């Protein structure tokens, strides 16, 4: 029997870009994994459901070591969607595909246990990569509904929420975040490296706020700002806040 391929229905292919977190493992892997476990223990579910890319540029490891690392990560429910900066000799069919051409973003590091406040290591020590260029037009979206607990709103540009962000919800924007309601959950602005991004909310009850990778948990936020209209911005390496109006 011969099958004739005459289906007129075309196959639909679409391009889509996602915001992925990039993990840069360091040698020895055992120590690094331990630090990762430490981070996971402090913020449960941090990597769950998130696209993760492994950046192994400059790492002197062979295919076997890499396979073990991917396995170890899978055991921690960190699913790797691709490997960046790998030599062909390090890859194989059973490993995640090689990825190139990713647009660089700021480090989204949450640091080791000894770091209490907003800290960022290694401020982008990779000169071969283009820096974020402010001044380009950023897209924005307006959400007219409350962001409910368990929901995660991610967008590469600015996000405006006309409503509240519930406890247990998160808003992650490449640009700034405006919340015309109460911010009870998490907000991360400038997640693609825009250090000029800001977070505005009409009433602050946040669990966590972050700009360009620097973050503050509710414990680090000055108590007198609670319940007020507040804006956050980044000044160098410190995340500053003040009341509005």
């Amino acid at each position, binding site marked *: 029997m011969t099958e004739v391929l005459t289906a007129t229905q075309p196959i639909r292919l679409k391009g889509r870009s996602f915001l992925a977190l990039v993990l840069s493992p360091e040698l020895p892997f055992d120590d690094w994994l331990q630090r990762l476990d430490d981070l996971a223990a402090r913020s449960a579910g941090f990597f769950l459901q998130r696209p993760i890319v492994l950046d192994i540029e400059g790492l002197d490891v062979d295919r076997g070591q890499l396979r073990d690392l991917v396995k170890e990560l899978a055991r921690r429910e960190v699913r790797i969607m691709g490997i960046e900066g790998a030599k062909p000799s390090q890859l194989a069919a059973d490993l995640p595909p090689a990825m190139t051409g990713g647009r660089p973003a700021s480090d989204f590091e949450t640091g080791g246990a000894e770091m209490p406040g907003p800290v960022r290591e290694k401020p982008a020590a990779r000169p071969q990569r283009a820096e974020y260029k402010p001044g380009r037009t950023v897209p924005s979206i307006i959400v007219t509904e409350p962001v*409910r607990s*368990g929901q995660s709103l991610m967008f590469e540009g600015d996000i405006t929420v006309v*409503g*509240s962000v519930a406890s*247990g919800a998160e808003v992650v924007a490449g640009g700034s975040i405006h919340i015309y309601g109460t911010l009870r959950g998490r907000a991360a602005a400038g997640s693609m490296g825009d250090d000029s991004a800001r977070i505005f909310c009409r009433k602050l009850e946040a669990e966590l706020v972050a700009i360009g990778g620097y973050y503050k948990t509710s414990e680090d936020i000055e108590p007198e700002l609670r319940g007020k209209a507040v804006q956050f911005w980044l000044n160098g390496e410190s995340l500053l806040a003040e009341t509005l109006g």
Partner: protein
Amino acid sequence: MGKAIVVTSGKGGVGKTTSTAAIGAALAQRGEKVVVVDFDVGLRNLDLVMGAERRVVYDLINVIQGEAKLAQALIRDKRVETLYLLPASQTRDKDKLTQEGVEEVITALKKNFDWVICDSPAGIERGPTMAMRHADVAIVVTNPEVSSVRDSDRIIGLLDAKTVKAEQGERVEKHLLLTRYDPARAEAGDMLQVDDVLEILSIPLLGIIPESTDVLRASNLGTPVTLADKHSETAQAYFAAAKRLTGENVPIAIPTDKRGFFGKFFGRKAA
């Protein structure tokens, strides 16, 4: 064509089953044809609250699996003749709740009843998702405390994403039923205020049910609160909520502490 209502909350023990039975009985007493459906496969309770536990022969799973006809599984209430119960299975696996099976049952019930009230299990797994899937209206049962409010918020998010209506680009009509409201504790600041809950959840309020021993007593007797003592404060609150559900405009009163000035004074001192 009737309306399918899901009574849901996320959190357990907030009063979903009590509210399902009470609102079902209240609507039926207005002459409307009502069926209350228990979706809590494996941990059924609605039959007990309805006082029909000894009359269960076939259940929802039997119907879905084609082992019994829908008419065989429905139990008619002995007190109100327009009130029916479709019990859940206590022994079967909840995975037997198939999407197609549930859809078939709900569609058939909507053809024959004015109101199909589905009592959802707690959580956000298969049982609750199946219970809410075909709903036209959702009653979100919430206690005035933070964990219940956050769970309800999560459920509202799911109602806007994982129901047939949502997938068709429509909205499930959502109502908040604030249960176990204790006026004395609210006044003392031990509980969230009504306004706080409404601000967080931002859906319309269907009613406020005061915390009362009437509820426990009625459950133990196997009688919905709205059939046990029609004049009790709790029953009245449920009757009012049922009226609002049918579109009647009934003003909502926030229950207040009934003790007099001295009662309050001493009550607080003692606490």
